[in-house]
């Protein structure tokens, strides 16, 4: 198999777009997801040599070491990891169930940390690699009803900066991509006047698409991104300008 990238949350939305873009660049993909969506099945069928699906529930932290071991055993040392899987439960903090806070932090923060920990090891031996964590502009701007989600994304940004310092000597870059509001299943509830207002206030008069954000991920994965590490690349059609 050619050099491959592990992409989490690959069944739909941004994860699926990232898989498509990586495959278009000629690299292989190991797509992790809880569900094997029809769209992902089609993508795998279109490039069966390059795209492989692995079923995984990443909120199940106990199984992440064994999952990583099995990925490396099956596909060899990974070139890159894109931590995209996340949940975005919204609701005011005062009434958010504690179990929801716990599960969000597990999937959005601890799971990327553990995947990075175990998949980085192969990259260390290869003396090259890429870790890309999908953040959100919410990490810095804040948004009513998304305090826990925002905290999880801010945590990923802090994690990425320090990890970049830790593994830079081994030729591995670690970055975040922070998309703005995109029309995906995760932001499906954001509609009507709120959505229109975000579009209106964006300098480009539109939302960034999942393809726009995926293109940034591909750039960071490419040789052209080799001098970029420890930073956050914002793709939001200018919303935070």
């Amino acid at each position, binding site marked *: 198999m050619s050099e491959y990238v592990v992409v989490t949350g690959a069944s739909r939305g941004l994860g699926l777009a990232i898989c498509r873009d990586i495959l278009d660049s000629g690299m292989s993909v190991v797509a992790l997801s809880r569900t094997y969506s029809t769209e992902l099945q089609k993508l795998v069928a279109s490039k069966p040599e390059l795209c492989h699906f692995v079923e995984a529930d990443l909120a199940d932290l106990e199984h992440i*070491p064994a999952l990583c*071991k099995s990925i*490396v055993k099956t596909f060899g040392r990974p070139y890159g990891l894109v931590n995209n899987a996340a949940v975005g439960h919204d609701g005011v903090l005062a009434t958010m169930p504690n179990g929801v806070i716990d599960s969000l932090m597990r999937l959005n923060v601890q799971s990327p940390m553990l995947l990075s920990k175990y998949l980085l*090891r192969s990259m*260390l*031996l290869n003396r090259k690699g890429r870790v890309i964590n999908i953040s959100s502009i919410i990490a810095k701007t804040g948004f009513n009803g998304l305090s826990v989600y925002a905290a999880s994304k801010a945590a990923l940004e802090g994690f990425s900066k320090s990890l970049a310092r*830790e*593994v830079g*000597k*081994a030729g591995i870059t670690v970055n975040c991509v922070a998309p703005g509001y995109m029309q995906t299943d995760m932001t499906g509830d954001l509609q009507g006047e709120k959505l229109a207002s975000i579009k209106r206030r964006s300098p480009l008069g539109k939302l960034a698409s999942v393809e726009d954000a995926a293109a940034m991920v591909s750039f960071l994965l490419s040789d052209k991104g080799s001098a970029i590490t420890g930073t956050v690349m914002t793709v939001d059609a200018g919303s935070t300008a």
Partner: protein
Amino acid sequence: MNIEQTVKRAMSDVAQLSDCQLIETIEPDTLLLQSGLDSLGYAMLVAQLEEELGIDPFTELAITVYPATFAEFVAVYAQGLEQKRD
């Protein structure tokens, strides 16, 4: 090759890979931090041994205190291999 020799050889491979200079003689009571490998070098050593031996004893045995000496490090791997055999 016994486990001690395997670890010593892996240390030397990793030192080369990470541009570290190992001390000449590694004794059982040599402190890991004074063997010439830096912390990233140790991460690479654990990765290298995982590829060779198929175990990561620190995760599998849930070891929370990192061994201080070479002998303690080797003992962790011996224990990990024993558990794998059982």
